[in-house]
């Protein structure tokens, strides 16, 4: 019995282990682990960091990158008050309509509006960016191998190319981008933004904050998922003990 169980476990383990190993991306450099607060089964978001990350996104990244799945109201979950969210939303002009004359019109944003996209369509985005399409960042942390660690690595991975690497016109060297040539120029520079909480705006800090923010944007359910998961697994462990005791009792006379 023990042997067969072990065998079953081995098969199961083999199946589970084989899958992602099979899918590990080739080509890019190894991505260092930054030990973010949301990692691990008890992980939660560092809200201050995520709020700073939103500031970096809105002052830097949002010039080219849309986040069309996000609404301003979602920022409430990051700890902003209703007034703060309304103020942030009202700073952007969003298109609405058609009105009674059949015309589209601009109005100040409301919390229920989606984040305003920098470009009306992908073609416009390409035209403004030398043919490259800046990806939407709503779920980027789920859409890249390595998630937030990759985002941090990419943002801090700019530098001079090794001598044997030729970089094409309009491209930039990045140690962590697959293929090492990225169309996006170095986006973060020291003191590019000013944080209200006086956190020094180093490239590393900003990269860390924006990676936290993007992870939150991609997985807003993470904290609830973790806390529910712990409770459910504890419940199931107790139930497993009980079920095993019942099973033993019933089988006691069957051998």
């Amino acid at each position, binding site marked *: *019995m023990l042997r*067969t*169980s072990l065998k*079953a476990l081995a*098969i*199961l383990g*083999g*199946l*589970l282990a*084989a*899958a*992602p*190993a*099979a*899918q590990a*991306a*080739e*080509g890019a450099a190894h991505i260092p682990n930054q030990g973010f607060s949301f990692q691990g*089964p008890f992980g939660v978001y560092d809200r201050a960091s995520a709020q700073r990350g939103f500031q970096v996104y809105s002052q830097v990244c949002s010039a080219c990158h849309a986040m*069309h*799945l996000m609404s301003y109201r*979602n920022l409430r979950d990051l700890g902003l008050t209703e007034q703060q969210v309304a103020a942030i939303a009202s700073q952007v002009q969003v298109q609405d309509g058609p009105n009674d004359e059949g015309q589209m019109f601009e109005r100040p944003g409301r919390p229920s509006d989606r984040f305003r996209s920098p470009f009306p369509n992908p073609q416009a985005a390409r035209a403004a960016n030398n043919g490259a399409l800046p*990806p*939407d960042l*709503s*779920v980027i942390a*789920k*859409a*890249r*191998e390595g998630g937030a660690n990759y985002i941090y690595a990419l943002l801090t991975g700019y530098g001079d190319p090794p001598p044997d690497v030729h970089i094409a016109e309009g491209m930039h060297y990045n140690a962590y981008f*697959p293929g090492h040539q990225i169309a996006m120029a170095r986006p973060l520079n020291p003191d590019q933004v000013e944080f209200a909480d006086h956190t020094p705006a180093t490239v590393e800090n900003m990269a860390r904050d924006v990676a936290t923010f993007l992870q939150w944007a*991609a997985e*807003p*359910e993470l904290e609830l*998922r*973790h806390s*529910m*998961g*712990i409770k*459910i*697994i504890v419940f*199931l*462990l107790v*139930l*497993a003990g009980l*079920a*095993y005791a*019942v*099973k*033993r009792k*019933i*089988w006691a006379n*069957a*051998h």
Partner: protein
Amino acid sequence: MASGLHNSDIPNPVLRWIDQRMPIFTMMQKEYGSFPTPRNFNYFWNFGALAMVNLMIMIATGIFLAMHYTPHSSMAFDSVERIMRDVNFGWLLRYVHANGASMFFIVVYIHIWRGMYYGSYKAPRELLWMLGVVIFLLMMATAFMGYVLPWGQMSFWGATVITNLFSAFPLVGEWIVTLLWGGFSVDNATLNRFFSLHYLLPFVIVGVVFLHIVALHITGSNNPLGIEPKGPQDTLPFHPYYTAKDSFGLVIYFIVFAGLVFFAPNYLGHPDNYIPADPLVTPAHIVPEWYFLPFYAILRAVPDKLGGVLMMFGSILVWFVLPWLDRSPVRSMRFRPIARICFLLWTVSFLVLLWCGGKPAEEPYVTISRFAAAYYFAYFLVILPLLSRIEKPLPLPESISRAVLGGGPLPAGAAAKPMEKA
């Protein structure tokens, strides 16, 4: 029985009234209560029940997800993300459904492995086994079409590659592919029909599962010794013995399931499927979901388009004739020392194919896949038919009860196995 009321012995008067007119309670009692079941099942025999529960979980979560999903090429991706963000517990339903597919395949693979190891496919259970293979094929079709629905990059290119498999068939191939697509490429029409069929097929599976169980309850279950029960001393009533044992196994299964859903919901998925489908850009490295990888590896191991497709389909279709390839009268591998080793090697070849399927189509993986695929087929087509003639099995125990409860020296093969001293 020919006319009048059924002679019911259900004590509760209301239930008896129903039972006299439609004896479902008598049937339940007969098939799931007192049903004589071999007393020596090990935990591998839990996996049929687990698969059944898994199917119900998939149908329940799927129905609720369909209330929010939009099967349109321009809205599908965003509607899935809306489920993740805005629908109450939508993330839970979706992660249970997505990981439930993986759990379903884990459970069913172990269930099939169990059937192969203990010879459950042999007479008189050939039809039972073949119905199981039909269920597996339906599962694969359903899972494939379900994976297309989020309309991410992997959805789109998976759909493109898999539907293109049919173009390998001469003459009718192109026609079939256009028919599957409903257009000149994978597009909105394809997404719509996949959604329709993805919703339909699980209910077809329920129907075949019902037949699978009907067939099971005619022949009765196989068991780890592979010998038929000879009398009441060899069996136990299904309830409470196996209901209790299945319940325990079910809780363990839920723990694994919950671990995936709550702490690694995207572990078995692929990041590229969070990129919306783009018909102009193929991802650098496309792979199917992990549960298709062994068959995908066989496809890639063959350098010929039609040959690869035929080998891939053949690798599953060969299961249909397994009862006639393996003519050995001994069911359980416990008593077949050579076949046992050959089968465990087959298991290794399957896992190697799974591993190779996820690797890029380059050396050394192609060569490894070829050897593994060759062994995969050789086991069924050469080794088993041959062993049926030449292998000398170990002596079988006299009866299940004698083997389990003692009462005499046990044959070597069954020794040191105090099964179910739980």
